[in-house]
Each structure stands twice: as structure tokens, then as C-alpha cells.
């Protein structure tokens, strides 16, 4: 679940992190009015996707008339597949320095990580790729969070990494960053965020430290603890996590773990590793996978049905390969789901099922009774579905 910039900044404000004054506008008129109240403003598209700056979704407006024009232009844009329902009109900052600050998960360290760089701003990804030494990291104790002294050490390390920075005196950096980092970390914990990022954290010409932009993404596994937020943000916020593909947005609405890949063989499997291996198998046999769809462990018949329905929404799908190796998932449940889905949806496309593991025999019997012959192995099933679709099917 991704928060829009203005939603993220609202949370930053609540924990005491300074953000520019801003108003959300849903029309050019509202943007014009905001500029009348606020003076020069930056107009920013509110879309749950990065790279909007380079896509033209951020414009400076010095007068109300310019604000009107900029908002009109941005509100009619489509940015990486997203329409722009609203813009954020923010006081324009006099930027003296852009800092990168983020809190996320470091899977190698099995820890949260605080990332700080004085080479912040739009180029942070390039910095990460080409000069990773300019980025300082702190892995705080998850219960204690980052201590003030640890943040001072991090700050000094980040300053040394860029050969120092004179925008503010060292003492100010050491003092100012402590509460910002602690608040951001606390927020990440309260929200169960998989990412809390301020980029840029701006130092203004007058020496104020203020959040220029903010990204917050909530761990989807933790949404059960944030029902109010889920309600407040609406289904689009959840749907946006997986990216900008309309099929993926739809899959998220249905609660399915789905990635659209663009080929012609619809894939359903249980377990991320197995599904990935199924993609590999289809490719090895000359086919192209339409998607990744993992029904997870212990899926019930209803989930299987939902999954098949989802696949059929993709017009490129010309056949379906279901690959189940039951551990916690039971063959009979899968078989029941498949049969009822096929029948209810009146599915005509080729369907190849490979099923083994827990309750394999019961599932197999159900499938056979319904006229679906299971394949004996995954490679055989891959070969079969590619054959059935034929060469026209491969993209």
C-alpha cells in the first residue's frame, strides 16, 4: 500500500518532521486559489509512482495564473499509466542542499536499515549504482530504534563520504538530523512501513531542514493492523503497490499475488519458487508466460477459482498451466476450485494441470471425473501446454 506524497507528508508532520505548507487541488481553479493564498508554488502530480518529475508532473508556478495553467496541464496527464486526480500545491523552497534519507528493510542483514546520503535528490539511484560509498547506513536495534549517538555517527560518516558539506555547520547537522531520523524510524515502525523515504530532505537557503518529497509504502502483510489507514486511502493505494499494470492493479484488488509478464501461457502455481520454476520451464519448452500467479500455501478452492478468473481477464492468455505441489496446499481443494471455475466461467482455453503432493490422489480423481487429465510431471505439462497453444501462441 503506497501513500501519495501529500498523505505521506501528513504522517511526517504528525511525528514532528517539518514539511512545506501545501494544499491539495483537484482542479486548476483550486490550484489558482492556493497560489493566491501561498505565493509562488510548486505544483506536483499526486500519483503512486516514482519518476513523475522526469515525466513532467512537477512544475513551478510563480503566479496564480501560472498555477492554473500548470495544474491544468498536470491534471490532464497520464504518468506511467496513472491518471492524475489531484495535485499538491506547495510553497516553493529555496533549495541549498538535497539530502537522501530512507528507512527500509535490509534482507541480507535481516534488519531495518537507515540510509543517509548528502548526495540526495533525483540522482540518488545513480549514486547508489555508481558511488555506493557516498551512502551511509545504520542498522538499528529494532526494539530500541536508532539512538541519538548512532545518528550522529551516521551523519559524520555520511559527511565524510562526500568530503564534508558546508551548507550547514557540522554542529547543526549533528543536532538537526537526530530528531528527523528518530521520528522517521518511529513512523516506519508505527505504520509497519517497508519504505519510509524523504528525498530530498532539503536544507533551504535560510538553513531550515524540511522534507521536499516523501514516499511511504506499507508492508502488505501488516495491513491487518492498519484497517483505518486502508479504509482512508481506499483500494487504489493497495492496488498501486505492485506497479502500474492495470491487470496487476486488478489482481491486487482481488488479493492475488500476480505479476503480468506479457506472454500467452497463463500460469497458476503454489509457492513463489515453484511458480518461478514453472516460468523457467515454459520458457525452456519454447513458450512464453503470461504471468506469475502464486496462490500461496494452503489455498482453498475459492482462491483457485479467483486465480483462474484473473488469468482469463488477460486477453493474451491462450492456455493455462496449473502447477501444484501440495504441502500445506491440498490437491482436492485445488481440483474443486479448478473444476467449478472452469464450469462457471465457461472456459474454452486449453488447461493443463500438474498436481502432486498432499491429497494428490483425491485431487487427481476429482480432476479425472471432471474430464481433466493431469500431467505426470511439470516438464511434461510445460511441453503439453506449449504444444496445445501452438506456435501462434508464443510471443
Amino acid at each position, binding site marked *: 500500500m503506497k501513500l501519495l506524497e501529500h498523505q505521506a507528508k501528513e504522517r511526517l508532520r504528525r511525528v514532528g518532521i517539518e514539511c512545506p505548507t501545501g494544499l491539495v487541488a483537484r482542479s486548476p481553479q483550486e490550484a489558482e486559489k492556493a497560489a493566491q493564498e501561498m505565493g509562488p508554488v510548486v505544483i506536483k502530480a499526486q500519483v503512486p509512482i516514482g519518476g513523475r518529475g522526469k515525466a513532467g508532473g512537477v512544475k513551478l508556478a510563480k503566479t496564480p495564473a501560472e498555477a492554473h495553467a500548470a495544474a491544468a496541464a498536470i491534471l490532464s496527464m497520464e504518468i506511467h499509466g496513472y491518471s492524475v486526480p489531484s495535485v499538491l500545491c506547495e510553497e516553493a523552497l529555496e533549495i541549498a542542499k538535497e539530502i537522501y534519507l530512507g528507512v527500509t528493510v535490509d534482507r541480507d542483514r535481516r534488519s531495518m536499515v537507515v540510509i543517509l546520503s548528502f548526495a540526495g535528490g533525483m540522482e540518488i539511484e545513480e549514486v547508489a549504482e555508481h558511488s555506493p560509498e557516498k551512502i551511509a547506513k545504520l542498522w538499528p536495534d529494532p526494539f530500541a530504534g536508532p539512538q541519538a549517538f548512532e545518528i550522529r555517527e551516521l551523519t559524520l560518516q555520511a559527511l565524510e563520504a562526500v568530503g564534508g558539506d558546508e551548507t550547514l555547520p557540522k554542529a547543526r547537522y549533528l543536532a538537526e538530523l537526530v530528531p528527523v531520523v528518530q521520528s522517521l524510524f518511529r513512523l*516506519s515502525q508505527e505504520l509497519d512501513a517497508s519504505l519510509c523515504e524523504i528525498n530530498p530532505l532539503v536544507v533551504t537557503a535560510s538553513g531550515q531542514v524540511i522534507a521536499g518529497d516523501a514516499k511511504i509504502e506499507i508492508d502488505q502483510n501488516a495491513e491487518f493492523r492498519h484497517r483505518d489507514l486502508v479504509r482512508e486511502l481506499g483500494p487504489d493505494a493497495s492496488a498501486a503497490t505492485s506497479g502500474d499494470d492495470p491487470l496487476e492493479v486488478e489482481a491486487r484488488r482481488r488479493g492475488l499475488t500476480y505479476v503480468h509478464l506479457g506472454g500467452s501461457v497463463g500460469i497458476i502455481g503454489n509457492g513463489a519458487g515453484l511458480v518461478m520454476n514453472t516460468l523457467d520451464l515454459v520458457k525452456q519448452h519454447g513458450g512464453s508466460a503470461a504471468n506469475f500467479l502464486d496462490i500461496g500455501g494452503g489455498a482453498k478452492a475459492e482462491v483457485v477459482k479467483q486465480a483462474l478468473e484473473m488469468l482469463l481477464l488477460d486477453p493474451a492468455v491462450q492456455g493455462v498451466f496449473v502447477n501444484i505441489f501440495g504441502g500445506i496446499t491440498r490437491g482436492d481443494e485445488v481440483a474443486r476450485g479448478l473444476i467449478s471455475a472452469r464450469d462457471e466461467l465457461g472456459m474454452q482455453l486449453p488447461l493443463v494441470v500438474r498436481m502432486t503432493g498432499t491429497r494428490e490422489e483425491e485431487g487427481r480423481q476429482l480432476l479425472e471425473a471432471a474430464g481433466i487429465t493431469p500431467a505426470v510431471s511439470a516438464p511434461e505439462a510445460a511441453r503439453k501446454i506449449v504444444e496445445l497453444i501452438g506456435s501462434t501462441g508464443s510471443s
Partner: protein
Amino acid sequence: MSILLNRASKVLVQGMTGSEGSFHTQQMLDFGTQVVAGVSPGKGGTKHLGVPVFDTVREAVEATGADTAGVFVPPPFAADAIMESSAAGISLVVAITELIPVNDMVRARAFISARGTRLIGPNCPGLMSPGERAKVGIIPNHIANPGEVGVVSRSGTLTYEIIQALARAGYGQSTSVGIGGDPVLGLSFSDVVELFAADEETTLVVLAGEIGGSDEERAAELIGRGYPKPVVGFISGRSAPPGKRMGHAGAIISGTTGSPASKVAALEKAGVKVADTIEQIVELTRERLGAARSS
């Protein structure tokens, strides 16, 4: 012998009275595992599947001497269950539960590390030592086959595929370990590979990784420094487009590590033969071990 789990292991199951817990506890009992206790708060004093149920892990450990725990409790309560077992002195916790919030796991991991508890998972199929008739988790009983291959894999279902393929070719397993697919895990590939090195029964290790993270690369480093047994590698997700998130496995390709190419290169550099398909895992095993002895 085996690693981590053997016939002397005394297993308790957290969440045993739930539907998944019941089903798989029965499977574990059928396999021959010494399941000595179940833990379900509020149901202490009852019996379930013939096994005594306790309110807390501490009580279960005191009454039964359990040393190993299987966690089947729902995601909101799973991290707490892991910590409870650790605090009660359990030395190996196997967390099957998937969809646990990542922050919960970061905290649980810090908690148990401070207490020296080993964790497998979460979001994993658990482990099985067929020659010892012992399993904790959800690996299907019927594919088990005692033998000399140590299997370690991230994915659950892929582990079964590999076990089954090896079994069909006549190779059994000393222990199979599914370390799980979550961003924050307990034992890593390196940890398990190191345990297999010291296990007499194990003569060859199959390491089945997937895209994302750099656990495979670090295991390769360990093996590259000198490893006493042949290792067969496998990396799934090779046809995944870079940058696509493949489900809650958290398989995000970032930078140069994490990509299938990086993992395969690291393993090959360490002298590990890497298979392209599951069938090839069997072939490479045969190449290294000769015809199956356990068939």
C-alpha cells in the same frame, strides 16, 4: 545422522489445535516424529491427537523436555510464538506461517539471536530427516526417502520437486531444509551448508536458490573457501524480468547481486556445478555420486 533434527528431537507444535496445525501434526506423527506437546493458549490441560496441550511453551518445555518447536499460528501471532519458544529455551524453532509482517520478523530475529536460538523460516516448508523418521513442517511424507543428499532450498514447493526428482532416481536425503522465502529469515544458506559439512551421513549438498537477496552469493563465498563435499546448485526465476517483484517472496532484483546471473556466477566461481533444470540436478548428482546407492 542428519542435521538439526533427529529421532531424539522432542517437538512441540504451536497452534496445534488449529486446522493447519492439526492436519500437519498428524502428518508429523504419522512420519514418526516425537511430537510431545501442543501449545494453544487457553487449551492447556486438554489433549489433541493424543498429545498433551499446554497454555504456554514454558509449561510444555517443563513438562515434556521439548527442544524443537513448529510454528503454525496465524501471521498476527507468529512472531510472538517464535519469541515465546526462544525465551522458554527451545533450541530450534521452525516457523511455517507465511505472510508475517516483516517488522515483526526483524524484531523476532533480534530477540532470538540474543538468546542463541536457531530459527528456520518463516514462510517455509520446514525440515525433514527421513532416516531419523523426523520432520517438522509440511514437506509431504510420501516423498521422503532416507539417503545421503542434503537439500537446502528457499522455496517450499520447489524443495518437494527436487526431493521427488532425486527420489525417483534413487537418491534419498539426509536432511532436507526449506529455509523460506521471506525477506527476513532465520538460518541462511551458509548456516545450513556449514551444518551439512559436519554431518557424516551427508555426502553431497543440493543448494536451490532463487532471485533476490545475496544469501546464495554468501554461501558461494563460504564454499569457495574450501568445502569438503560436492555441491550441486540451482537457481530459479531465471526467466523473471529484472525489476519485477515476484510475490511476497520479496524477490526484488537490486543492483548486481540478487540477479540469477550473479548467483550462478558466484556459485560457479566457488566450484559449484549449477543445474538449469530439476532434471539436471539429478544428473549432476549422479555425476558426482555415481549410481544411486539407496535405491
